[in-house]
């Protein structure tokens, strides 16, 4: 066990730089997939002809493919077809394409969980369908979506590590550079990186539990 190189200032600095890339990519993908996921989920919920079937097709295909394959395709596959994305863009795109399908499902079941009586009441008051969706169904549904959404975001933070295959300079990648040089630092470095991920994601899940309690009250 090579603890000396694991905790060397240069190593820790490089891990922190990697962590910033991880967080930056994760945050961008979270925002983008939240936006696309809500659009897709609403399309699927409203059962608009053609559009909602296209949404179903997209959701079912993407959520049944390995993310790693999507990342490979977004970088090497597109490059083969003449579209060259920088690594960061390819990673964000892959994560967004995959996660928005999963978020769409969360959105749909959140919207479905709003009681039918609420919709009828709103319509009886003279709300149009889109007003009902916007003022009645969405706010109530969103509350119930918080816990599954947060666990999806946690998954996304973990998933950024898969972009190591296209050499995104995130935390795993930077750890690799160190332990490729100092082989005996491999285990301590992997454990250290695991704890860094754990700290971020565990805090996220705590925040979600707190939010859930507050909103329920």
């Amino acid at each position, binding site marked *: 066990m090579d603890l000396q190189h694991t905790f060397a200032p240069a190593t820790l600095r490089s891990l922190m730089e990697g962590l910033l890339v991880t967080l930056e990519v994760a945050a961008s993908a979270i925002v983008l997939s939240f936006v696309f996921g809500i659009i897709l989920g609403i399309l699927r919920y409203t059962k608009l002809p053609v559009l909602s079937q296209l949404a179903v097709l997209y959701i079912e295909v993407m959520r049944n*493919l390995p993310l790693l*394959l999507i990342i*490979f395709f977004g970088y*090497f596959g597109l490059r083969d077809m003449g579209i060259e994305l920088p690594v960061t863009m390819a990673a964000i795109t892959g994560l967004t394409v995959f996660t928005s399908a999963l978020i769409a499902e969360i959105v749909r079941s959140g919207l479905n969980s709003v009681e039918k009586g609420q919709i009828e009441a709103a319509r009886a008051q003279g709300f149009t369908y889109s007003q009902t969706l916007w003022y009645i169904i969405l706010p109530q549904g969103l509350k119930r979506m918080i816990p599954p959404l947060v666990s999806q975001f946690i998954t996304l933070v*973990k998933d950024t590590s898969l972009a*190591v295959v296209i050499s995104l300079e995130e935390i*795993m990648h930077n750890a690799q550079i160190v332990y490729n040089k100092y082989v005996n630092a491999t*285990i301590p470095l992997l454990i250290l990186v695991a704890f860094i991920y*754990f700290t971020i*994601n565990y805090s996220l899940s705590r925040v979600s539990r707190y939010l859930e309690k507050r909103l329920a009250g």
Partner: protein
Amino acid sequence: MFDVAVLADYKQEFIDGFFVTLSASVLALGLSLAIGTFIAVLRLSGVRPLEILGTAYVEFFRNTPIVIQVFLFAIGLPTLGIRFSEFTSGVLGLSIYTGAFIAEALRAGIQSVPKGQMEAARSSGMSYVQAMRYVILPQAFKLVIPPLGNQFVNLVKNSSVLAIIAGGDLLYTADRVSSDTFEVALVYGFVALLYLVITLPLSLGVNWLERRLSKNH
């Protein structure tokens, strides 16, 4: 632009990769069911230290990336002189990760059976084990099947991490064939279809089961 004949040339490689993906998923499912059941029993044992141990397992592995868990077996342990094949490392990493999610699904399922059921069974003279075996578990089973099915779909997708450690799975095959032939987009597209052949029927089956089981409630 696409030379489809390439796919026929590498038929055997694709078949091999398909079976490696399938067998890694099935083996890891068996192992993670065993791990998950054991951890769920710890968490429900009523013995404080065991509960904490079970919770720590679940929280730690759910909140750290699968890449790290696979790397620990594939490149971490060899630095201590413990060496597994790439395939075994992959299966072990997958099982440890998925075990945490299965433990969570089992615990949630068992705990959602109303407390009165256990009390009624105990007061009619059943032992704790009998009450579990004949009253609680059969009811919990119904609630647990859909989330377990989802975990299996995830497992099939996650087995693609074998590709990162040269595990010979479907995605690894795609990587090799595409760098042999330069037909990157075509090969990844084809392999995506092969993944869907496994995951799509599975997740449609889970959706169907979920709807059926919720109707009976």
